[in-house]
C-alpha cells in the first residue's frame, strides 16, 4: 500500500477534524468584523426617486429563445445567441448577420470589436473574426479555442483579444491563448457545474469570480490558478455573478429567488435582495454605472431594479413574455439590454 506523502499521525479523521475546525474559525473571523449591516450604513443616504426606465427598442429576428448577449465597446453593436427551433443549429446574430456557431450558451465581443467568441453544448468556445464583407464565408474562419469536457456556460475575453476565460459544466474555469488555443491556466475548486464568470474591472486586476451549481461563488487569481476567496450562502444554484463597478464587491443571482451582494475586503455577504412575492429564480444580474442599482432578470419574465445600498426594490421592468436570460449594461451606462426566451432582446433606458 503506497503511503507516500502521509504526514506523521495524519488520517482522514484527523484531517476532517482540522477542516471542520478551520470552517468554524472562518465563520468566527468573518463574524467578528460584521459590526453593522450595509442598509444601516445607507440609512442616511437619500431614498431613490422613481426611475424613468422603459423599453426603448425591441429587437426581433431571432427564431427562438435568446440565451446570451454582449455589447460591443462601440456601444452600438450587440452580439446575441439563440436556439433555433427548427434545426439543431444554434446561431449567433451580430448586427443582422448570422454567424456559424452551434449550440451557443455563451457569447462575447472581443475588446477590439473585431471578433466574437461563442460556445456551448459542443463543449468548445470558438472565435469568429468579423468582417464588413457580408458575403465572406465566416464558417471557414471560425476557430476553436477552448476545449472542455462538458458544456461551456460562460466566456469572456480578458483585457485584449489575445486571451479568453471560460466556465464550464465540467466544474472548471480555464484561461486560453486565443492564437494557439493553448490552455494557460485551469481553475479547480467547484464541485459541480460552473454557470457564470465575470472578470474584475480594474485594468491591472488579475482576478475573476465564478458561480455554479455547488451554490458557491469563488474568486480566483488568474496567474496562479489559486482560489483566493469562497462564498457559500445561496440555497440553490448560482446562475450569474457580476462585479460591482469599483471591483471591491460582486453580486450573484440564484435559483433560490434571491440576489446577494458580497464585499471582497470584508470577505462576507453584505446584502440579500429578496421579497416574499418573488418566488422564481433569478438568472442574471448587472449593476448600473455608479453601482447604486442592481438589475436582475427572473424566470417570472420580469426585471427588478434594486437599490444596492438600501436593499429595497426600486422598480419592476415589465415587457418580456418569457424568462429573462441575460441583462447587461451598455458600455457607457446609458442603457440596459435584456435577452429573453420570448425570442427578443429589449433595450431599456
Amino acid at each position, binding site marked *: 500500500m503506497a503511503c507516500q506523502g502521509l504526514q506523521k499521525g495524519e488520517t482522514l479523521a484527523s484531517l476532517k477534524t*482540522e*477542516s471542520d475546525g478551520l470552517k468554524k474559525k*472562518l465563520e468566527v473571523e468573518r463574524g467578528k468584523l460584521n459590526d453593522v449591516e450595509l442598509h444601516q450604513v445607507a440609512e442616511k443616504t437619500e431614498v431613490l426617486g422613481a426611475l424613468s426606465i422603459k423599453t*426603448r427598442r425591441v429587437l426581433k429576428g431571432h427564431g427562438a429563445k435568446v440565451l446570451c448577449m454582449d455589447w460591443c465597446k462601440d456601444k452600438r453593436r450587440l452580439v446575441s445567441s439563440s436556439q433555433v427551433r427548427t434545426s439543431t443549429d444554434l446561431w449567433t446574430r451580430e448586427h443582422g448577420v448570422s454567424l456559424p456557431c452551434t449550440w451557443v450558451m455563451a457569447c462575447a465581443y472581443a475588446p477590439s470589436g473585431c471578433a466574437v467568441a461563442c460556445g456551448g453544448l459542443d463543449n468548445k468556445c470558438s472565435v469568429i473574426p468579423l468582417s464588413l464583407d457580408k458575403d465572406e464565408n465566416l464558417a471557414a474562419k471560425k476557430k476553436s479555442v477552448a476545449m472542455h469536457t462538458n458544456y461551456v456556460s460562460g466566456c469572456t475575453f480578458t483585457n485584449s483579444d489575445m486571451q479568453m476565460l471560460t466556465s464550464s459544466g465540467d466544474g472548471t474555469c480555464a484561461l486560453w491563448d486565443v492564437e494557439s488555443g493553448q490552455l494557460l491556466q485551469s481553475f479547480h475548486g467547484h464541485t459541480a457545474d460552473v454557470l457564470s464568470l465575470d472578470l474584475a474591472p480594474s485594468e491591472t486586476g488579475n482576478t475573476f469570480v465564478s458561480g455554479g451549481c455547488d451554490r458557491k461563488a469563488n474568486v480566483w487569481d488568474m496567474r496562479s490558478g489559486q482560489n483566493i476567496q469562497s462564498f457559500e450562502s445561496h440555497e440553490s444554484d448560482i446562475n450569474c455573478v457580476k462585479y460591482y*463597478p*469599483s471591483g471591491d464587491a460582486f453580486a450573484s443571482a440564484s435559483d433560490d429567488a434571491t440576489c446577494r451582494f458580497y464585499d471582497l*475586503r470584508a470577505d462576507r455577504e453584505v446584502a440579500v435582495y429578496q421579497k416574499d412575492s418573488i418566488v422564481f429564480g433569478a438568472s442574471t444580474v448587472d449593476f448600473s454605472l*455608479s*453601482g447604486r442599482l442592481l438589475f436582475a432578470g427572473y424566470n417570472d419574465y420580469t426585471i427588478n431594479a434594486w437599490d444596492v445600498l438600501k436593499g429595497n426594490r426600486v422598480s419592476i421592468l415589465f415587457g418580456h413574455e418569457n424568462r429573462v436570460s441575460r441583462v447587461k449594461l451598455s458600455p457607457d451606462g446609458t442603457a440596459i439590454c435584456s435577452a429573453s426566451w420570448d425570442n427578443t432582446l429589449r433595450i431599456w433606458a
Partner: protein
Amino acid sequence: MTSNSNLSNMRRMVEQLKLEASVERIKVSQAAAELQQYCLQNASKDALLVGVPTGSNPFREPRSCAVV
C-alpha cells in the same frame, strides 16, 4: 487507491481553508462606507439613475419633430 485520493482531497481542502482563514479582512462598517462613497461619487454620471436629457440619450427618441 480510493483511500489515498480521499486523503489528498481532504488535505487539499484543509490547505484551501487555511488560505481562506488567513485572508486579511476589514470591518463591514468600513467596507459599506466605501461602497456607499463610490455610489455617491458616481451617481451624477449614472444615466439610468438620474436620467439624461432626452436629446442626448441615443436610445430615447427626441420629443420634438425635426423638419426634413
